[in-house]
Every structure is written in C-alpha cells, then in structure tokens.
C-alpha cells in the first residue's frame, strides 16, 4: 500500500470547498487527498514525486460524446482541411485546396504495394474550398487502376475514382438516390446516400465498419484520447455486436489501456424488449475501465448534412426540413421503455424540433413513470433555445453541447443553414450556465478531433474558422468551460461521484498540462500543451512529435 504524493505548480481540483492545491496524494489508484504537502503528511509514509512540479494538474478530462471509430480511421491517411493529430502524436497538416488533396493522395499511393488493393482516405472537407467539387477525374490522377475511396469529414459523403465506378457498375443508368450526376446525367464521382456508398464499398470489398471497430481501433481511440488529456471517453452509439464487446473487454483488461471507456448501446438497433436484457447482461461484464450503462437514441440527422429536424422557420436557405431516424411516436415508446428499466438515455438532437420531441418524450415518460435523478441527456442540442433549456432544467435533464461546431461549421451556419440569429445562439453554453442546466461540451470525434481543451476554447471564445465571433452573449468563463469538460461531463454520465474532480476518495485520473488554463489568455486555451495523463494512478506520458 504505497502512497505517492505528486507536487505540481498548481492543481485545479473542481472541488468547490478546495478549488486549488499544490499536492495530491495517490494510493491504490485513488485520491487519498489534495492540499498542501503539510496537510497530506498525516496519512503516513509516502514518497514524493516531483516530475509534475512545473506542471498544472486538472481532473482527467471526460469526453461525453465521441465515437471509437476515431481510432479506426487512423489506419488510413487523413486528408482534411484542418490540422489533426494521430494516435502516435504525429500532426497531419490541413490540405487547403483540391490540388493539395490529390497530390497528397498520389504521393501516398506510391507507398502502397502494387497489388490493386483499395486506397481509402478520410476527413476530406471541401466546404472551405472555392470552385468545383471533387470529380472522378481528380481521383483518377491518383490511380487509374487501384480503387480510390475518399470519405468526407462528415462521414456521409464518399468520392471515388473510375475503377470503383466501373467495378460497381455505376453508370448514368443507375437509378439510386445519392449518386450525384452532372447536367449531362453522368455520375460525377460523388456518392451521398447509404445505398450508393455501399455499392462502392461492396465492389471494392472494403469493409469500413469492420476495420473501424476492431480491437486495434479501440486502442488507437484510447491513445488519441489520452493525447488530449482525456481519461474517460464515451463511444456514444454502438449496436455492440459480440465482436466489438470482445475487443472492448480485451483492451480494457490491459493495464496499459489508457482510458475508461463508456460505450452507449444503440437503443434503436434492436427492439427494446431484446435490448434491455442484453444491456443488463453486458453490465455484468463491467470493469474499472469499461462501463456498459448508457443508451443512445438518434432522432434526426445533422444541420450541415441538411437532415436536422427544425422548427419553423426551418433552414435559412430554404432547404426542406430534415428526416427522422426515430420519429416522435417511436421515440416516446423507446424512451419510456428504457426509462422504466432504469437506464439513462442520451438522445441525439441537432435541430430544435428534434430537441422539442425528445424533451416531450422524457416529459411523458416521467408522467407515466416518475423517477428521480434520471439525468436523461440531450446530445448536441445545437439549436435549443432558452425555452427549451428551461424545460430541460424543470425536467431534471442535462445537455451535452457540440461546441466544436461553432468553429468548424459556424460560418456555414451563419451564412446558409441557420442565419445570423440562430447561429449566434447555437450551442448555447451561456444559457445553460445561467439557467443551471447541467451541461458538458463535446467533439463528436471523429466528426471533429477529440480535444476537450479545444471544446472548452470554443465555448469560451465562440470563434468560427474564419474568425467571426458567433454570439458574444453565449460565451462562458474559462473556469466554467473547464468544469464542463471534467465534472460537468462526468455528471451527464452519472460518474460525478467517482471521477471528474480531484477530491478524496475519487479515482486518481488526472490531465497533466504544461500550462495553467486559468491564467493563460482565454484565446490561448486550446494551445495549452498536454503532457499526458494519469489514470487510476498510472502515468501515461503523451508522445511528443
């Protein structure tokens, strides 16, 4: 029973009765105490560890909405617009033009064996490109023999080259939604709907879902999270087939696995009568680093994907309203079933009509089966207005807001999808804070990179990629943003009594930072370096590029 006391430049505890400390004592993977060195001496014999003496310690970051696919995609080259860091700590620079993307792919193609195998790349993000879309001819420059597939950053749209279209037999006569065709009726190379994309995947024998969720992908996901200071992360929508569960169990059993993982069961993937016993069975396999307990339901699509369910007046540019994945009546039934069974339900809602329907589903479930401290949580809730936040508060619900959207798509929302007024109040952290709705902010990796300090920076500064401030009134102070990525997120996952603050008895999960996020300029918050993490007392140093 050894005790180690870590000295730090400062420890930001998130414990209101002792917000700051200089030392933290760790025993058996848990926090024995925090305070001054003197205040910890009474616990008996200990060793002092000075390695963090010039670092700042925060509670390990909690990513309340990410997907383990983030680990899978790093098997393949990233060709996005923004810089992004791999699980190995290598920085991939953003590609700013179509020509740069094609050149990068062509260079990568030369490194592959000459066996005709498929080249897959991801993260392609042309929304800030001026001029034309990517076409077959562009990717034919990469190869006219090897199938080339380029998945967009939204994970909904796929570009391919001529060999793929030939193999898949996609021609002007193929009458399937989502095969984009030009004015002459010829396919352009872009595939937008599941069936259209599946034609390409099938023809090339490329099993995206398979490679994205194997055990190796789980490890990469954990590493990329660890690099960002994360000690607890969700995989917030997974049908949890046996193969995936197996991978999670194996990975989480390793002492070297650097995060606590919370998969959320895809609650609409099977009827609730099957799902509930299955989830209860899975919970028996829980260990220190793996928790089955969450249920996720997806109501609408995405705002930028033009599939969000919005209330009047709808899309700013007149795009018709989006589509339901789970519609109002079905949502009522599913929420009630999971609610009755005692589960906490996380409900994906991007548009404000989706949020309204989700709030009402919880309201009805509570009327039928009153329950305390359910903490059903709206995930994204990007368009929720003050009235909806008041309802969340009244019903005991939480919100996990997609702050990263402000940066990555804020300009598009301002100009095209939402218009100025609704764009300025989207992801309304300020409203949530002032109304007392428990909230977190998130990245939705791999949609945007995992990085709680970046998410916090978004909530604090609300800057878009072009530099526009989107909603001065919804900015929140740094201290509140830091709470949202630690104790706040832990609360939305019902883990706040176990982790999320540096408090006696809690798990020794820390983010070790190079600088003090409370003293750097708020606009520099995202640039605070992450030295690594401590998980259950075990130190994980991040590789430096």
């Amino acid at each position: 029973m050894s005790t180690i006391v870590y000295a730090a430049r400062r420890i930001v505890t998130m414990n209101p009765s002792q917000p700051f400390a200089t030392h933290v004592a760790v025993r058996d993977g848990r926090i024995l105490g925090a305070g001054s060195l003197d205040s910890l001496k009474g616990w008996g014999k200990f060793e002092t560890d000075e390695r963090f003496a010039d670092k700042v310690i925060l509670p390990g970051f909690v990513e309340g909405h990410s997907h383990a696919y983030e680990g899978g995609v790093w098997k393949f080259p990233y060709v996005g617009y923004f810089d992004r860091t791999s699980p190995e700590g290598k920085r991939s620079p953003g590609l700013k033009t179509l020509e740069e993307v094609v050149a990068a792919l062509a260079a990568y193609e030369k490194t592959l064996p000459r066996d005709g195998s498929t080249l897959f790349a991801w993260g392609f993000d042309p929304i800030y490109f001026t001029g034309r879309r990517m076409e077959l001819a562009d990717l034919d420059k990469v190869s006219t023999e090897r199938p080339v597939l380029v998945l967009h950053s939204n994970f909904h749209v796929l570009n391919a080259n001529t060999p793929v279209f030939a193999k898949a037999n996609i021609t002007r006569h193929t009458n399937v939604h989502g095969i984009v065709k030009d004015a002459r009726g010829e396919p352009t190379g872009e595939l937008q709907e599941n069936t259209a994309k599946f034609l390409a995947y099938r023809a090339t024998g490329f099993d995206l879902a398979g490679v994205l969720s194997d055990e190796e992908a789980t490890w990469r996901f954990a590493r990329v999270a660890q690099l960002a200071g994360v000690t607890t992360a969700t995989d917030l929508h997974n049908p949890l087939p046996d193969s995936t569960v197996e991978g999670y169990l194996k990975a989480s059993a390793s002492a070297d696995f650097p995060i606590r993982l919370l998969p959320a069961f895809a609650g609409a993937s099977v009827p609730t009568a099957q799902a509930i016993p299955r989830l209860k069975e899975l919970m028996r396999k829980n260990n220190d680093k793996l928790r089955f307990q969450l249920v996720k339901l997806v109501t609408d699509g995405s705002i930028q994907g033009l599939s969000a369910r919005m209330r009047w007046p709808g899309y700013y540019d007149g795009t018709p309203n989006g589509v339901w994945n789970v519609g109002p009546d079905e949502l009522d039934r599913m929420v009630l079933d999971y609610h009755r069974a005692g589960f906490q339900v996380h409900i994906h809602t991007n548009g404000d009509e989706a949020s309204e329907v989700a709030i009402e589903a919880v309201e009805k479930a509570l009327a039928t089966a009153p329950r305390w401290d359910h903490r059903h949580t709206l995930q994204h809730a990007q368009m929720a207005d003050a009235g909806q936040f008041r309802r969340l508060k009244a019903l005991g619900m939480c919100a996990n807001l997609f702050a990263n959207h402000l940066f990555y798509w804020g300009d598009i929302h301002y100009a095209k999808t939402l218009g100025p007024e609704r764009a300025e109040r989207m992801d309304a952290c300020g409203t949530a804070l002032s109304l007392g709705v428990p909230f977190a902010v998130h990245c939705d990796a791999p949609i945007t990179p995992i990085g709680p300090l970046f998410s916090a920076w978004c909530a604090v500064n609300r800057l878009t990629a072009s530099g526009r401030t989107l909603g001065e009134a919804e900015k929140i102070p740094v201290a509140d943003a830091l709470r949202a990525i630690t104790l706040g997120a832990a609360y939305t996952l019902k883990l706040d009594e176990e982790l999320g603050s540096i408090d006696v008895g809690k798990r020794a999960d820390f983010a070790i930072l190079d600088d003090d996020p409370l003293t750097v300029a708020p606009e520099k918050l995202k640039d605070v370096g992450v030295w690594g993490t401590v998980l259950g007392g075990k130190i994980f140093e991040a590789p430096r590029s």
Partner: protein
Amino acid sequence: MTAPIPFTVIGGFLGAGKTTLLNQLLADTAGRRFAVLVNDFGALDIDGKLIAKHGGDTIALANGCVCCTIGDSLVETVLKLLDGPQRFDHIVVEASGVADPGRIADLGVLDERLVRDGVVVVVDAANVRERAADRRVGDTVLRQLQAADLIVLNKVDLAEDLAVLRCFLSTHATAPVLEGSHCAVPSDLLFGLDRRGASGKPSPANSFRSWSYSWPEPVDRAALLDVLQDATVLRGKGIVRFRDSPDRRSVVHQVGKRVDITDGGPWSDTDESQLVLLGVRPVLGSL
C-alpha cells in the same frame, strides 16, 4: 443464372397497417416462399403451429417462408439472406414508420440477385390527413406518399369522408390506390403474378382481373407505355419486342406508377411478345 428475386418495400406511418398486411401475406403465401424483414417480431401474428424454428432474430416457417428482424443494418440483413442456403421467391421489407420507403427500395439494385419490385405504402384512412397536417411528421407522411408505387388505403371503414380522402391522395401522390379494410387487398397486386400452384385462396375482391396478351408483330413503345400508365393497370410483366429495337428482348416490369424496361438479350425468331397485366377493369381495347 436463376431469375432475380423481387424486392418489395412496405412503407407507411406508424399504425397504418403494415404489420396487418404482412400477417396476411404470411397466412396466405400461395405457395411462394417469402422472406419478410421486420423491425420487431412483436406485432407479427404467426400461428405457432407454423413455426419450424425460432432462432432469435430469425423465425423459419413450415411453409418455406422466413421472418427476420432487420437489426442494425438492413443491407447486411439482406445480403446475409442472399448468401444463406435457403432460396426465396420474394423479399419483403417493412420500412420503419418514419422511413422514406423509396430510399430503401434502392437496395433492389444492390445485388444482381435482386430486382426492385414495388414500393407499397399503407395509408391509414382514419388519420392520414391529420398526420399530414402535423408539423412534426407531415412532411414525412407526404414523402412516403410520393415514394409509393402502389398505395393501400387501409381502414376505409373508419374514414369519415372517403371522397375528400381520395381527392387528398390524388393531390399528394401519383400512385394508384387500392382501398380496403384490414389490408384486405389481393396480394397478387402487391407482390406479383408468379403464383406457384394454386394453393392460395382466390382474391377477395372480384373487381381485379388479369389479362394476358401475345403479339407476333413488334409493338409500338409509346402505345404500350400509354396502356401501362393507365390508372386502372396496377401491375404488368412481360417480354416485348419493340418496333424501335426489334432485335432485343425488352423486359417490362410494372408496379403501380413505376414502369421499368430493361434489356433481356437478343430476340429469337420464334418468340412472341408476351404481356400479363393486372388491373381493375378491361381498358385494353386499343391493343
């Protein structure tokens, strides 16, 4: 290669009667082996005596049919079915209550072992207009109506004003409408003409008829399309020699408003154009 398997999608809003329709189909298969893909077995009313094997997400029936739950991926469920040992004459998918069944029917082109058949949308006569006016689901309901190749207007016994309802449907959909209660419409119309044997009961309504035609001479394409697009012709199937492509076999497949004409290879001298139609009354004097 064996003939491709017709792929039908049953759409319609929650409570419209999709499951009732599937229950009838399974109770009276007319000797055909259906694979029925549903979201939930719960509402299916399968006679326990008919169940040959219950395997969690699959129920095998003694009459050669099988029911599967769709699970997380419809694509994977369909491909698993095609790759499995059992052969089927028809695959029928029940769309979720908010899905666009037209998108699901796209899966019919996914594999050469499949052929897209119809999109049948079941409409609840008692509340479709109310649903269509609902600000949250109205556009979903109208999208489904537009995607339909054939509409089953169900629960007509509960409709308050059938004339207004018919007018509403003709405004929002171009598909022919079959009216009934408890989804009692002839399954031939919905699922095609390939009856194996005559074990099935006769169609409940006598107002539906079938006609067969054959012509030795090439046929004018526009004239044939005119006939097929007549509102009273609900289904058609055949191999036709068109005047504009006399050397090729043109395979004609019609479900409601949708007509597909595909190339069926070279024409042999001894063949005649053959066409079988199902509809509500004879209108084919022009041929």
